């Protein structure tokens, strides 16, 4: 019965484990290249300013002009809307006045 057998000796276990030492895995050329490419990228990233780093974090793996252009476009749109919308609302003030003339209560008996 396997359960009743004495267990392996410490010395033999050490011999078994020592046999594992020989099996070191050799890294592939592809892995080495990936690791060194990461070094280049990490180093290139260190030279970036705070805006570039932020844009990389929000919008990774694109040229820097894309997040910059998106930021400029959204700023322009925001400014344009902020400039045009108040004057449009002022021009329409006559049309919108009726909204304030609606009575603040309803008479349920009125329609019956």
């Amino acid at each position: 019965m396997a359960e009743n057998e004495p267990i392996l000796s410490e010395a033999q276990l050490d011999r078994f484990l020592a046999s594992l030492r020989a099996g070191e895995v050799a890294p592939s050329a592809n892995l080495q290249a990936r690791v060194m490419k990461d070094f280049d990228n990490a180093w290139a990233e260190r030279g970036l300013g705070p805006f570039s780093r932020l844009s990389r974090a929000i919008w990774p793996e694109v040229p820097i002009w894309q997040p910059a252009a998106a930021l400029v476009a959204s700023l322009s749109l925001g400014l344009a809307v902020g400039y045009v919308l108040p004057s449009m609302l002022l021009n329409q003030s006559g049309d919108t006045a009726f909204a304030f003339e609606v009575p603040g209560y309803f008479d349920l008996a009125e329609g019956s």
Partner: protein
Amino acid sequence: MIDPDAELVRRTGVGDKAAAAQLVARHLPRVLTLARRMLGDTAEAEDVAQETFLKVWTHSRRWQPGAARFETWIYRITLNACYDRLRKRRPARLDDTIPIPDPSPSPERIAAANAAGLAIAAAVQALPERQRAAVLLCTVEGCGNIEAAEILGISVEALESLLTRGRRTLRERLKAYRD
């Protein structure tokens, strides 16, 4: 404590690619091997090795020589990455999923088929992750107890306890292969 890698890490921190390449040549095989033994999967081990070195590149500028040896630090990063991956795996008992060769054949046949080699690798793989790391670091990677405890972030007493339990489990599982 003299760290043979301290100068290379310092140079890597200032962008010296030749120093980085030397660190890779010196440590990538061992990092990859440790990850392979922890995870039992070459592709995942490669990802862990890449992740480990990416952390080295990112933090090398802030690395303080004297606090810990570079080798201790890189092993700790590797093991933490391995633990993360092991936690993300489907929660299954490794003992049930990793086939251990049938211990019933005769010793002669086992020796002829080199089954003991496979059995020891499978038995180590089947250990709980902390015990596996302790056994691999101390017995296979050749770390001293103090260094291994430092890598694992535990006391030497806790490491010894992990080693004792791990070795006891291995001796039990491999009893069919005794002389």
